[in-house]
């Protein structure tokens, strides 16, 4: 996963079905993760970082590591996958 440059967020409907177009999270020129296309609330949640605080919380500025951590931290209500 060294070369991970993008992951996709899949919005869900009330039934838990994926709906709409997947949202791409890529990398900015400075190497940080670009959260600008995400729904506002989710973007704010992720700005605080993802992953386990004890083992090492990963922030958007960490770029590819952050994207990898998104895949790890995904759950049924916050779906991220490496391909659209």
């Amino acid at each position, binding site marked *: *996963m*060294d070369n991970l440059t993008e992951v996709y967020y899949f919005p*869900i*409907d*009330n*039934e*838990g079905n*994926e709906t709409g177009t997947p949202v791409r999270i890529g990398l900015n020129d400075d190497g940080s993760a670009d959260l600008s296309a995400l729904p506002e*609330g*989710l973007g*704010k*949640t992720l*700005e*605080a*970082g*993802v*992953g*386990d*605080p*004890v*083992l*090492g*919380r990963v922030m958007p500025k960490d770029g590819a*590591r952050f994207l*990898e951590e998104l*895949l*790890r*931290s*995904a*759950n*049924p*209500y*916050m*779906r*991220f*996958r*490496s391909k659209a």
Partner: protein
Amino acid sequence: MALATPGSSPRKRGALPLPRKREPVPSAEEIQAPEKEAGENLEAREQKPETPQDRYERQRREENRQILDRAQSIDQRYFTAAGSWPDNLDKKIEKIDLAETLAYGEEIKRELIGEQGFNAITRRTYEGVNGTAVAYVKPRAGDLTYEYDPETDEVYDVRQQWNEDAQRMELVSEVTEDEYTQLSVKEWYKNQDNARRVIALHYEVPIDEIPRQKRMTERLGITEGSLPLREYAASRIDQMLGLDVVPLTVLREEPEQHDIVSVQEAVKTTDPQRPPRVMTPNDFLFVAGRVPGFTENTGPEHPAAKSMMRIAALHWLIKSADAHLGNVIYDQAAQKYYSIDNGVSLGPSFVESEGEEPRSVNPHVSAPLEIVNDFPDWKLDDEAIEGLKRFYEETMQYLKERESAVEENGPISRPDSGIKQLTSLFRLLYQNESAAKKEAMELLKKISYLIHNGRPPILEKADTFESGKLLDGLKTEEEARRKRLEQSTANEGAAA
């Protein structure tokens, strides 16, 4: 005894090239295990000597069978004792029906919603005699673990992979590339005997009862393959105490791979326009009444605040250690929070492995606990306190009766008592009688604390959500909104 020996935590950060297959190295326990009858699908090989892989598969199936039997026995007692639950009759029946559908319903739909190799959660629909239910399913065989091979001085990432042809689960490993993981796993391996001594002291058991661990997981004290079990135990404790903030979860057999899965009901909402979603910091600004202009019907009486306080109490009780914001789900229609992904919880109550004496440390990592820290006047709602009191008083009554019965007619046993069910759950997790009893009594003391203080204690920031950024973020956002409002008011004033 399957208490994990603590040590430094590794963290996988390196690349994940295609797995390089390696013969799995059985542990000392695996090699020395007594010969028993082969599993049903292995009988065809009875003429051949048992290979390490066969033995691993046989033991895995036996262990899964035992776990499932015990969980079913716990649930049978729990649901039979439904009369003592705090819910009304309709809700009781609804829960029993749902548990039955999740545990025994026919699977009619399945889809992978995670990422294979990272987060292989599936969404499934079950059809039972009492209706259908949608649930999220986690396999027991899904953990990533780490193993140190002293002969090669290498650290390996180890995963389980189902071999369809051989009809068995196989351990697939690759050399760990991440330097930090290598160092920490080696440190853990070297420090294991000391850690075993600490654990033995803490639980007052002979050190022989603490086996050396072959593989370690990413989290201290959380044994390999135990996440679905802890997910299930967290749900059952939530139900027993009447907190009702964890979606109902059961353990279920996964026949194709002879595995066990945890099955957690999906959070559903009544408003199709507002699906359940992960918590955002902004939600809580409104709930707390910290958004200027939106302060009516907010504060501790807000339904969302009640559920947040209940989750914080539960996380304190079960030593929740992975409750980041993404694992707190908000049902917008009901204005209620739920706690999901509780697999990293209910670990041993210490992690210190240096020195002779066990040192109790606070293992909590919970955003809800951190949030309620900032509202020291907020208390649990009356109904939640009633649920805790019911459990506590019934337990104390049972313990008194048992004590007097021992003096008069010998011991009594009431399998449906809450504390007996709790201890049974803990036996499943800690697999040691002394540890299970000690953990159950510690939890009982914490329940007593909640009853008397109305809320979990204020925990130091360092012991909870390390980032501290959540509340900083809340405060920054709050401040920004206030400034915007002041600016806007000032502009209006100037214009007037």
